[in-house]
C-alpha cells in the first residue's frame, strides 16, 4: 500500500483508493495531484482516436509514435517526484 494511504484509518476509503486509481485524499501533495491529472489526460489522448490523429498531424509524427510517446510520458508526466524532507 502506498504511503499516501498510510494515515487513512477508514478501510472503506482505503478500498476506494485501491479500486479507483487517482482518487484524492486529504494529504495529497500537489505533485501527486498534477501527476494524476496528466496521466488521465494522456490516457484520454491515447484512448480517443481523433485526438491521437490530431496530435500526429500537428506534430508531424506518425500515430504510432504519438501513442508510444504519450504512454511513455504517463510514467512521469511532471518529472521526477520532489525530494521528501520529512523522511
Amino acid at each position, binding site marked *: 500500500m502506498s504511503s499516501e494511504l498510510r494515515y487513512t484509518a477508514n478501510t472503506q476509503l482505503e478500498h476506494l483508493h485501491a479500486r479507483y*486509481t487517482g482518487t484524492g485524499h486529504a494529504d495529497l501533495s500537489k505533485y501527486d495531484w498534477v501527476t494524476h491529472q496528466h496521466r488521465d489526460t494522456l490516457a484520454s489522448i491515447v*484512448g480517443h482516436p481523433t485526438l491521437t490523429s490530431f496530435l500526429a498531424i500537428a506534430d*508531424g509524427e506518425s500515430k504510432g509514435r504519438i501513442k508510444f510517446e504519450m504512454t511513455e510520458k*504517463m510514467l512521469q508526466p511532471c518529472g521526477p517526484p520532489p525530494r521528501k524532507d520529512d523522511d
Partner: protein
Amino acid sequence: MHLYNLTLQRPTAAIQAIVGNFSGFREQELIVSHGTSLELLRIDTHTGKISSAVVTDVFASIRSIASFRLAANHKDYAIIGSDSGRIIVLEFSVDSGKFIKLHQETYGKSGARRIVPGQFLAIDPKGRSVMISALEKSKLVYILNRDASVNLTISSALEAHAEGCIMQHIVGVDVGFENPTFAALEQDYTESDQDASKVAQKMLTYYELDLSLNHVMRRWSVPTDLRANLLVQVPGGQGGPSGVLVCCEGHIMYQNMDAVQHRIPIPCREGSSADRGLLIVSVVMHKMKDRFFFLLQSESGDLYKVTLEHSDNEVRTLKIKYFGTVPVSTSLCVLKSGFLFVASEFGNQHLYQFQALGEDDDQLEYSSATYNDFGILEDEIVSLDPIIDSQVLNLSSHSDSPQIFTACGRSSQSTFRTLRHGLGVEEVVECDLQSSPTAIWATKHIENDTTNDYVILSFTNATLVFSVGETLEDVQNTGFLSSVPTLAVQQLDSDSLVQIYPGGVRRILPNGHVQEWTPPSGLTIITVAANTRQIAVALSSTEIVYFELGLDDQLEECEIRKAMGSSILAIGIGTVEQERQRYPFLSVGCEDQTIHTLSLDPQHTLECISLQALQAPPSSICTIGNLVHVGLQNGVLLQTVLDTNTGQLGDTQSRFLGTRPVRLSRVVLQDGIEALLALSSRSWISRNRNNTHTTAFTPLLCDALEHACGFVHDICPDGFIGTTGSVLRIFCLPKLKDSNKLHQESVPLCHTPRQMVCHPNNNYIYIVETDNRMAINPPAGTWSSSIHILDPTKGETIACIPLDHTEAAFSITIVPFSARGGQLMLVVGTATNVVQVPRSFTSAFLRLYRFKENGEIELHYKTEIDDVPLALLAFQGRLAAGSFARSIVTLHTQGSRIVVGDMEQSLDFLTYKAPDNRLLVVADDMQPRWTTCSTILDYNTVAAGDRFGNIFVNRLDSDVSEAVDADPTGAGLLRQKPLLNGAAYKTRDLPTSIHKTTLVAGACEVILYTAWHGTVGILAPLSSKDDVDFLSILEQQIRGEQGTLVGRDHLSWRGYYAPVKGIVDGDLCETFHLLSDTTRQITDGSDVAQTNE
C-alpha cells in the same frame, strides 16, 4: 432552436482492421473500424477489387477490435473493446446482413478512461480466452467456450490487475494447447513516484490462465528494453518456437520464457538522424503451411520482413530484410489469397497483391538503399482522413447546388478534393446529331433478349432507327414509319414492336408484316402509355382508347372510349407482372391539374376510380411497382403510393428536381431492380435503398439531359442513352451501388494543408501547406511550407510557391485594404523554428502578396510581428490577426463585431469602437471549450466545434447585443454577460470546419460540418414543433428499443462532455429502416421520418 444532425459521409479513416472468415465463406474478409462505425469489406480475389458489404454505426468510440475462432468452428467472431465499459462479441449474420451481438459483459464505467479496460485486446491463438486491458492497472481475462448446442459462451471476468502498472501493449502467446498465456509490456510507477532515485523498469510479463483452477497468475516477468512499444506473437506448439517479438525503438528482440534472447537492429535509411531510433508502428504475423514470417512497418512507412530460424523449438537467428514501402498504416492485414491490406493512418487505404515474398532475390539482408516492388497496388478505398479545412461554395457555372472543397491528407499524400452530391457519370460514347431529337428509346426486339437491339430517335418530322451492334448504325426497312415523329416505341408480346405516332398505332410483326390502327379522321394521338401487353392512347378529342393483347396475341381495341373532359397531358401504366394478363390501373394526368386513376379490369374498363388534384399541370407519369411518379411542368416530382387492391392514391411525397418540366422514364438496372430516371434542369435517378422500403434520389453529375432512357449493352451493363441538345451520349454509372453519394475529385498537394481561402473574383483557391519534421526521422522544428494555388473548377494546380526554409505558414486570408483603395491582397501568417511542445518560435511574419492577372501572386513585402498568427481576418478594410500567445484559431466578423475562437478558451465576442479605435471584449463563454472551428449563424448566434468532438451553438442575449451596439465608446460594457448556451451535441468525430449554407436550391439553410476522420455532416433546423416532437419521440423510442451495437448508452455518448440539448440524432433515426417489421410497428405506427437530403 432545434437541429437534426445527419451524417452525409461517415468517417473514412481506418483506425484498425482485422481479417477473418466472418461470413463463414471460403474467402477471407476484413472488418475495418472507423472509430464510430464498423465496416465489413470483401475482396474479389480474381479482380482484386474491394467491396463494402455492410457499414454499421455503433454510436460509441471503438478502441480495439480483434477476431477469434472457436476450435472446430468455420466462422470467426469479432471482439470489440470500446468506451462502453463492456466487452462485446459480434457475429456477422449473412442472412440478415447485419452484425449480431452474441455477448455483452459489463466490467466497468463508460468512457475511454485510464483504468477501464478496452484499450487493448489479446486473443489466445486457439480461441480459448481473451484478455482485455486498460492503459493502466486493469486487465481482465474471459474464457471463451462452447455449450452443448455449439453456442459461444463467455465466462465471468478473471482479474489480472497490477496496481500502478502502465501498459504499453499486450498480446496472446502461442503455447499450443497448454494453458492460455498472455504477454504484457508494462512499467510500474509506484516506486518511482515515491523516490526520485528509482528508475522504473519496463517489464515483459507473462500471465497464465489456469483453466483447471479458473485463475490468472503472473507466470514470468523479465526486464526488457525501456523503449519497447509493441509485442508480436511468435507461432508456438507444433509450428514454431513460441514466445514474442518485442519491437523497441531502433531494434527488435525475441524473448521467451527459458529461452535465449535475440536482438537485431532495424535497418534505417541513409541520412536519417542518429538521435532517435526507428519505431515499429504496425505489424502482422503470417503463418503458412510450413513456415511463418512477420511484416513490420516503421514510422517512415518502410516494411521489413522478419524471419526466425529455429530448430527444436529454439530460435537460432533472427533475420530482418527491407521489403518495400507503403503508406504508414494503423493495421496491416495479410490475406491467405496473397493480398496485403494496408489500413493507412491518413489518406486512402490500399490493397496490394504480393508478387514475391522477398525470398529469392539476393538483396543483402541489411541494406535498404534501393526500393523494390514487393507487389502491385490492386485497389484503393478513398478516404478523406484527415479533413483539415474546407469551403462550401458553388463555383461551377452549370450546377445549382454548392460543392464542398476539402483540403485533406498529410505531407506528400495530401489532396484537395471536391465533393459533390451525386453520382459520377462515365461517358462511353458522344456524338453530334446535327439536329435535336424530341424523344429517344432503346428497345429490344424479343422479350427475352438481355441487350437492346434498336435505338430510335424521334425528330419533329422524322424518326430514325439505329441498330445496336459494335457501333450504332442507321437502318432502313425495319417496319418503322420514318417520315413521322414518334410518340412511343414499345416491345409488345414476345416478339413484336409497336410504333405509336400522331397518326396511328403501328405494330410490326416478326415476319415483317405491319398492322395499323388509325384514329378517327381529324383526330391525332397526343400521348401514350404502353407495356408489353397493353397500350392506351390519348386522342386530341380528350378521349382515351385502350388496347390489350387478346388470347390470340392480337391487339384488341376496347369498345369503350373514355372522354376525360380536359386535355390529356400524360398517361402512365405499370409493367405486367409475370403470369398476369394486364396491369390493372391507368393513370391519366390532365391539363386541369388533376390525375385520374382508371380501372383496366375487363368488368369496369376505363372507369374512374380515384382523382387527385395537382399543384401544376403534369408533364410525365411513370408507374413503378405500386409507386406512381408524376412529373409536373413546374419541375416538381410527386411520388404517390397506389393501393394495388383499390386503386386509391395516397401518401404523396414531393421533391423539387429542377426548373424544367419533369420527364420520367423507367430503367431496369443490372440486378433486375427497376429504377426511375427523372430529367429536369438536373438529372436524377431514384432507386430503392438497400434493404429498406424507401427510395433515394441521387442527382447525376453531368450536363442536363433533355431526353434519356436506359440502354443495356455489353460494354455498359447499367448504361443510359440520352441527348443534350443535338448531342447524343451513352454513359454508365459505375458507382451506382455505393452507399456513399458524395462524388469525389482530387488534386494532389505538396504538403499537409493548413488553411484555404477562395479568391472572390477569379474563384481560385489559395492553400497554405506546411509540414513539420521534413527530413528522414528529423527533430521537431524543421518545417517546409508552400502556398498552393489551384483552379477548383478545372481541378488543376496553377502554381505552388515554396516559402523560405524553416518558415512555416499557418494562416491565409484575402484582404481588401481600404488604405489601398480596396485592392485585394493575399496575407499569409508564418513563423520560423516553431516547436509545438513546449511552444516556442524564433520570429513571426505577415507576408503580403499582390495578385497578378493570371491569379498568381508576387511578394509585396514581409513584416515581422510579435506572435505567430494562427488566424487572419479581413475586417473593415483592415487585417485582424489572432496570436499564438492566446492561441486564437478562428476569426469571423459581421458588422462591427468579431467572433474570436480560442484554442482552449472557447469563444469571445469583440466589438470594434471606431471613435477610440479600440477592440472590446463584450461577452465570453461560460465553459472553457477547445475551439477548432466556428461560424456566425446570425448577428448574435455562433456555431462552433471543439477538439473533443462537440458542436455547440451559442447566442448572445439580444438586449446585451443592443446595449453593446448603442454604447458609443463601450466604456460601460466590459464583460457584461456570458454567452448563452443554445445547443450542444457530441458528434462522432472532431469537427474541423463548419459552414452555414444551402445544399439544395430552394431548400432551407443548414449547418454543414467536416470533421477530422473524413466525416461530412449537416445540422438541419427543424422548422415546426410537430417535426421536433415527432423526431424526438422517434429518437427516444429507437434508443430504448435497440441499444447500440457495442452496448454504449446512446444518450450518454451524445452527451459525453455536455448534456445533449436541442439536437436530434438523425443517424439514429435513420436506423429505423433497419429495424425488423415488428419492432418498427411497436416503435412507431406513423410514417418514416423525412429528411432533408
